[in-house]
């Protein structure tokens, strides 16, 4: 074992102890009648066991089974607000929602904390502090707009926003209204071009793979490029951000502009990936912001079993903040389990893509 590997293993052990301690603190918080939210307190009253005495570490979370996100659908939304935060200003963020009642989660400061932690992973030379941002993607009831705007502000910049409504996009795709889809995408890109050409000194961009492609193609048709607009750093995310797309974007769209992939959703924080280029085969490996969130790769047929390193499995998320507790939620994604690395001394996941067991019913890459 190399010295670096030994150091990583040693750090992994330390992080594991810290995770167990954090689990105890978070569980104590959520199941204390003075601080917990009505949902989990009601759950505990019917569970027949006391999480505060029986959960001594991360492994004990298995006693909760798997969180079902259907429980997030519908109200009253206040049942998710921890009593300790009852008097704080509360945000609600929604996910999905193409049909029926969307799933929602409450937040107070989590999105700020998550994005501040993520900020530390951004290289200052590509995302210069004090520079302005463009948030080009889904906002509306989603967390993204506020989160990206906070990231910009946290780094001393001001965030310009162009909205995209993914629910409308999904409807257009399902109806086969491709002309409308193209027109809507053009409408979004028009606004982005206008903002980028208005002298606001925007250097940082959040967007999605599809919109980055559309922006690059439009700029090129106009005799310009993403680099020419002054953008030096892009952060993007989603299951469409595959190694092939990473390579395609770097080789053909970005002209040297730095881009970092992320994996996240309303239920968790933001998982970052170490830089990945041709030397790494453009492979993307995400590491959750432990201990606030833990990503595991588990056997789809036996979700209590974590697969071996390199093996494929379903992504399982545990969110552990004092605002929100989600034990062992089986995501709609799959990927390969990756070992700890120097920068992130805990398990990661690579090759994230829609879970093949349910992929046929999922519309991905809509924006």
């Amino acid at each position, binding site marked *: 074992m190399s010295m670096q590997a030994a150091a990583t293993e040693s750090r992994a052990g330390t992080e594991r102890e810290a995770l167990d301690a954090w689990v105890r603190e978070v569980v104590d918080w959520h199941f204390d009648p003075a601080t917990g939210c009505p949902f989990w307190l009601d759950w505990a009253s019917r569970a027949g066991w006391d999480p505060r005495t029986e959960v001594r570490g991360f492994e004990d979370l298995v006693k909760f089974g798997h969180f079902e996100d259907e429980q997030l659908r519908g109200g009253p939304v206040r049942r998710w607000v921890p009593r300790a935060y009852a008097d704080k200003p509360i945000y609600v963020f929604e996910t999905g929602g193409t049909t029926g009642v969307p799933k929602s989660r409450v937040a107070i400061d989590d999105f700020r904390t998550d994005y501040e932690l993520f900020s530390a992973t951004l290289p200052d030379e590509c995302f210069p502090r004090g520079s302005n941002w463009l948030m080009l993607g889904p906002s509306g009831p989603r967390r993204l707009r506020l989160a990206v705007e906070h990231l910009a502000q946290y780094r001393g910049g001001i965030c310009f926003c162009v909205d995209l409504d993914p629910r409308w996009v999904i409807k257009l795709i399902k109806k*086969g209204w*491709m002309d409308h*889809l*193209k027109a809507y995408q053009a409408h979004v890109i028009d606004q982005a071009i206008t903002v980028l050409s208005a002298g606001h000194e925007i250097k940082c961009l959040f967007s999605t*793979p*599809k919109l980055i*492609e559309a922006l690059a*193609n439009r700029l*090129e*048709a106009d005799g310009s490029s993403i680099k020419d607009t002054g953008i030096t750093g892009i952060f993007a995310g989603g299951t469409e951000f*595959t*190694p*092939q*797309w990473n*390579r*395609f*974007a770097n080789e*053909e*769209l970005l002209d040297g502009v730095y881009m970092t992939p992320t994996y996240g959703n309303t239920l968790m924080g933001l998982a970052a990936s170490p830089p990945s280029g041709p030397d790494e*085969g*453009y492979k993307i490996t995400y590491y959750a912001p432990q201990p606030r969130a833990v990503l595991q790769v588990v056997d789809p047929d036996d979700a209590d079993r974590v697969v071996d390193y390199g093996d494929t499995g379903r992504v399982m998320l545990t969110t552990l903040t004092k605002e929100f507790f989600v034990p062992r939620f089986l995501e709609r994604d799959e990927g390969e389990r990756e070992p700890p690395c120097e920068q992130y001394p805990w398990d990661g996941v690579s090759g994230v893509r829609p879970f093949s067991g349910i992929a046929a019913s999922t519309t991905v*890459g809509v924006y």
Partner: protein
Amino acid sequence: MIHFPILRWGKPYKSLEVDKVVHFATGEPVAEVSQANPGLVARDMRKASRAREVLREVPATELVGMVKKAAELFSTAELPLGEGSQSPDDFVRQQSATTGLPEHMCRMNMEKLRYVLDHIDEILLSLTRGLDPGILTRGYGEEGGVMRSYQATTPVLGMVLPSNSPGVHSLWLPIVPLQIGLVLKPGPQEPWTPWRMTQAFFEAGIPREAVALYPGLGEVGAAVLNNTPRSLIFGGTATVEQYAGNPNVQVHGPGFSKILLGDDEVDNWESHLDLMVDSVLINSGRGCINCSGIWASRHTREIAEAIAERIGPIAPLPPEDPNASLAAFTVPGQAAAISGDIDNAVAEAGVTEVTARFHDGGRHEARERCDYLRPTVVHCESPAPAAVKKEYMFPFVTVVECPQDRMLASIGPTLVATAITSDAAFQRALLDARNVDRLNIGPIPTIRLNWLQPHEGNIVDFLFRPRAFQMAS
């Protein structure tokens, strides 16, 4: 392992994402196919006009010669594939291995494609109604003292191709001599024909920059449709409905092809039995031109029984067996779903499954990695049951009892109608029936095509629009 790269205007591009295509019976990987991402298609299509430019640099008559040379190469030559090469026999074996089609049917489809390539000059002459090809190249020209002008509606034709029947590739073979580029998205199990045809074209001298090939999933097909001004797509009824009314997309869906026996001929039905059986059975019933409905005013039970006697006993044979008549279903669950749908259809009053007595183990034969459906004949006492509108990707036919004067109003959309009748009034009605595309009057099997005639619309009309043009001298 054979690797199919993406072709970006003729240049190979190896993707970081590959899909393995496997042998339908053994599960052994046969090849890996680079998967395009939709953005790559959109990116390349910005240069689509170049495809037409390079083709216009070659006189149309020379392109015709190259296509004819490609006919020979496609059916006889060792052509590049992966790191090595592919013989015609390799092609047949490999195509059979991933599509489930028996090898002799793959060979038959290969010959069909060769025929079209060999006769491309006659086909173009017919489709353009004898137009001087130079007029399409220049965009205008005088013919018989009349100025004629045609404008290409697109520099390239996008195509989302199927996996089920390699014969359909004949539809896009006349495109290159019309100096329109090709943007192909192969079916997931059938990368073989688009690749081999492309290589034959290149070897014959057709400019590489005129052809792009993008294997991938559904979203890559959508990218092809969304980024080419004119496209063809093959699919099921849902696909047809999705693109119905879109003038930029020509949709090729289920054919619902039929044989109609006129009252004047129906008493002679026995003399047409071979024609009926061939129309249902050839190519394992997979094509849109295979017959899925036989309509007559009387003798329908006898007809159904006679066809059942012929095709009901047919059982699966190994793909290399020259007598194999059935193709395997390689998509998991597909055969079971079809069989379940048939069960529901035959449960309706007035519907009888005539072949059931030949299928001791049931209609559906499940194997370890694939499935077969045994040929099925269903009798319907009237056009009312849902069964009469069914068509599946295997030898399946309904024999429907219906008075002749109600037939055309009841048959629904019909790609090929073979009407066996000498009744002038019925023939007139058939000629006027707008729900019939290809019309055969007389004993012509539905699967026998005249390649000099348009198929579901004239491709030349789709790719060129006539317009007024005047030039001051």
